[in-house]
């Protein structure tokens, strides 16, 4: 990604070192360290109030960090005002200028830079074509639909060819269908332009499907950074496992470790073997996390594998691609199971019914032993 090959000091698109922001004594962002590569689609994912927007606003220059440093394209931006930074923002509310036409809105950034008029005209036209609104230049923002306003906001930002494009929940105001369309368009646009995207969202599916890497945030801190599959398959904390996708949790205590497999005894004396993504020692209090699609229900005799528990089927919900089943473990706790409907059949015997008995099983690699 670096055109000059591997350098001694690789230049990151954005580098955050110990960035902290406190408002009236409470920390909105707490000691965040991130390196975002050139051309990367990087998402900040977390629940509302987790500090992701504040972090984005600090990169844009609307807020000054209370502590730490922000480096954009190798230059420390310190207290550089927003209009001098080589970043552009797509706002959640779009913030289009209501008194200017679409064309004037899109041209605004180039006008501020003093780009010659003729060049502005061609570039505005190109930008409007890029977002598929070539004939809309003379309209006013209020004459556009939400999706069209969103595209204008996008064109207004990318026309400046910034090093980094900051997107603050840009799709949150759109309805589901339009949001899916815009997700694909955003991703294609980003690949075509090669601009670094920093994308703030609270929608985990959006983050998983679009991002090269995701930083999961909560309470102002970054909990885990990694590619989507790593975040989903190897969450390091209970919060990440719970926030991304669905998860069953069983509290317990480590009793033994062998060959990287941890033996855990739950409070209700179930013995479970699982994988620990971070080192654990016998005696540690842990949380076992198991995703509902990574377990099997088996009927008949007890299967001869380590994790097998007799359960009773409580509820069955057929939802087309999957059947979602709630089972009750021997200790009385309930557990979610998603079975893929891989075979097309109307035979009722092929599906579980409430009251059925079965064995709940999983392989140790699908049971994560988490310390937090």
């Amino acid at each position: 990604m670096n055109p000059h090959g591997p350098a001694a000091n690789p230049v990151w698109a954005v580098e955050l070192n110990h960035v902290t922001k406190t408002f009236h004594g409470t920390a909105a962002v707490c000691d965040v360290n991130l390196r975002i590569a050139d051309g990367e689609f990087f998402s900040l994912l977390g629940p509302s109030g987790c500090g992701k927007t504040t972090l984005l606003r600090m990169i844009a220059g609307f807020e000054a960090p209370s502590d730490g440093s922000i480096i954009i394209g190798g230059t420390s931006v310190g207290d550089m005002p927003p209009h001098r930074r080589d970043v552009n923002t797509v706002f959640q509310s779009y913030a289009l200028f209501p008194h200017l036409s679409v064309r004037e809105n899109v041209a605004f950034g180039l006008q501020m830079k003093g780009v010659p008029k003729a060049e502005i005209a061609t570039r505005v036209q190109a930008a409007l074509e890029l977002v598929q609104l070539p004939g809309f230049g003379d309209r006013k923002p209020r004459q556009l639909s939400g999706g069209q306003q969103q595209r204008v906001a996008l064109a207004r930002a990318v026309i400046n060819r910034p090093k980094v494009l900051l997107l603050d929940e840009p799709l949150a105001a759109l309805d589901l269908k339009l949001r899916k369309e815009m997700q694909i368009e955003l991703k294609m646009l980003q690949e075509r332009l090669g601009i670094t995207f920093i994308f703030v969202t609270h929608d985990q599916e959006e983050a998983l499907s679009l991002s090269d890497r995701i930083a999961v945030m909560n309470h102002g801190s970054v909990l885990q950074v990694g590619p989507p599959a790593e975040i989903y398959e190897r969450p390091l904390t209970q919060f990440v496992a719970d926030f991304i996708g669905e998860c069953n949790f069983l509290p317990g205590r480590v009793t033994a470790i062998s060959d990287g497999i941890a033996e855990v005894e739950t409070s209700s004396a179930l013995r479970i073997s699982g994988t620990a993504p971070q080192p654990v020692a016998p005696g540690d209090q842990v949380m076992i996390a198991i995703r509902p699609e990574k377990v099997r229900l088996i009927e008949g005799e007890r299967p001869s594998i380590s994790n097998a528990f007799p359960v009773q089927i409580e509820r069955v919900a057929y939802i087309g691609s999957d059947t979602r089943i709630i089972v009750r473990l021997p200790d009385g706790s309930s557990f979610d199971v998603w079975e893929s409907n891989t075979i097309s059949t109307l035979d009722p015997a092929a599906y579980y019914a409430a009251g059925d008995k079965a064995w709940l099983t999983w392989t140790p690699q699908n049971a994560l032993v988490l310390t937090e």
Partner: protein
Amino acid sequence: MAKTLADARANVRHGGERPVTRKRVPWGAWALRINALLTYIFLYAPIVILVLFSFNAAKFGTRWTGWTSQWYRDLWQSEKLQAAAWTSIKVASISTLIATAIGTLAALALSKTRWRGRRAFDSAMYLPVIIPDIVLAVALLGFFTLSFRGLQSWLGLNLQLGLSTVIIAHVAFNISYVTVVVRASLANFDQRLEEAAADLGAAPWQIFWRIKLPLILPGILGGALLAFTLSLDDFVVTFFARGPGVNTLTTEVYGRIKRYVSPEINAISTVMLVLSMVLVVLSLFMQRRQSSRTV
């Protein structure tokens, strides 16, 4: 909006479903309607009478003797009245320009920045709107007399009440009105637009000229029109602050009324009434325009 609509629908449904046992005479509703009618008569009857009598052919008294536009022609030909009208317009224009500039800047300062005593300053801004004209007039007269005496003893300047003191007095009360109106329009202004402009490379002064000013301009013009109207209509403050021989339309009317209420006075008043109404409507229209602009 959606909620009110839903509520309205629910009400309609309820009304329709309620079984009608016997027809009731809605006395309450009628009483309210009659009350509203009487209120309007009370408010507007004197004005309607004034306008009617400005077209009355009778020179004296209140007897109706037929239609005429004589008094309007007389107005048009009276040099004294023309001079007064010219003075009124001069005072109103100059005081409006100065008050609009100062008032807008005050509104910007009050809305944008946070500083010690801002709230107190904010409340103090409303004071001239609230206090009686006569209090303001007496205060201004005292202020002028004192400062003229001071300037004479220190600098040897010999200043008198005149046209300029009227203008200064009008600026004094108009600043408040302009500030109040411009503040209202700033409250509608979306702060995020400033961030968006800064993000696109606009320096603070560019943000002001390209984004903020165009968007609050209807509010500023609305404030200016209001100030112009108030200045045209003012009598009490003008009466106290003017020097000898300075007459605006209002003081001129007052001077004439001392002898008798002539049909000419009715005619001048009608002209001023129409002018004020046009200006106020225009002012409201300008303020309305801004709110419709916000997306």
